[in-house]
């Protein structure tokens, strides 16, 4: 068993209204960042996972995402695992 750091990125699904992203977009525009065309806000969750391989760690966490960490109705998720540093 080794230890892996698994990063979960949870983001609002495309097309879903993201009022927080919209507010930040407005703020950026008012600061002159005209090149910013869209802003979406999600969250990052970091897990320390004991597993035989990075693939196994990611697989376990993907299962947890479907069950708990993301809401399939409104959110997408992306999982990446790397050896713990």
């Amino acid at each position: 068993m080794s230890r892996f750091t698994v990063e979960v990125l949870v983001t609002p699904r495309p097309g879903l209204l993201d009022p927080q992203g919209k507010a930040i977009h407005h703020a950026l525009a008012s600061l002159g960042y005209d090149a910013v065309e869209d802003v979406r806000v999600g969250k990052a969750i970091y897990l320390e996972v004991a597993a035989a391989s990075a693939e196994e760690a990611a697989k376990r966490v993907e299962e947890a995402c479907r069950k708990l960490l993301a809401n399939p109705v409104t959110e997408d998720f992306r999982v990446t695992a790397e050896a713990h540093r």
Partner: protein
Amino acid sequence: MNVAVVTFPGSNCDQDCHRSVELADGTPRYLWHREHSLGDAEAVIVPGGFAHGDYLRPGAIARFSPIMDAVVGFAREGGLVVGICNGFQVLCEAGLLPGALLRNRSLRFQSHDCWQRVERTDTPYTGEYRDGQVIRMPLSHADGNYYADANTLAELEAEERVVFRYCDAQGNVTPESNPNGSLNHIAGIVNRRGNVLGMMPHPDRAIEAVLGSVDGLPFFESLVGTRATATAAAQSEVA
């Protein structure tokens, strides 16, 4: 009628719901979320609050509380289950109701009265209202912005499963009368079978004149009366 009111760590409307059931001549009982059985409950209320601190997403952790297996099983068998405010969020997370409650369009926690139109009076929860009745009660939430994908939304409307809709004091569904950005002004829905209801506004905070409105009391009287009607019907069938 025996009504169980579930208490999670962070629930704060369990006492309101308990009193509401009492005032409607039902028999309420608190049910701690670590329990595994509903006992003799004939209906279950999942109350408002901030179950498990609303961490991750409102309702996301509460839906895995031990009592929820019993609640889901009860609902699947046709048992009466109501989720109010945070309870609505819990029932959506548990898959008993479709869709999700997103952050309010305003990005703020909102706490004020709202108007709703009663769209259905043939549910176990609305029989004591008049069709199209306009009722007033408080809402109090940061995440009450009802969302469902286009197919689900069309299905809800086609099957007339929207029970409460935000409106103005005259019952008109206008853009200004939508407090939180909910799609189709949805304030409350039922599942396909009609036994599970979720709503964001608080009938439990509108049950006595001193609270400023009694428009929530018929909700609980309907619920408690449903049992009485069902029993009477069953007895007349036997006779």
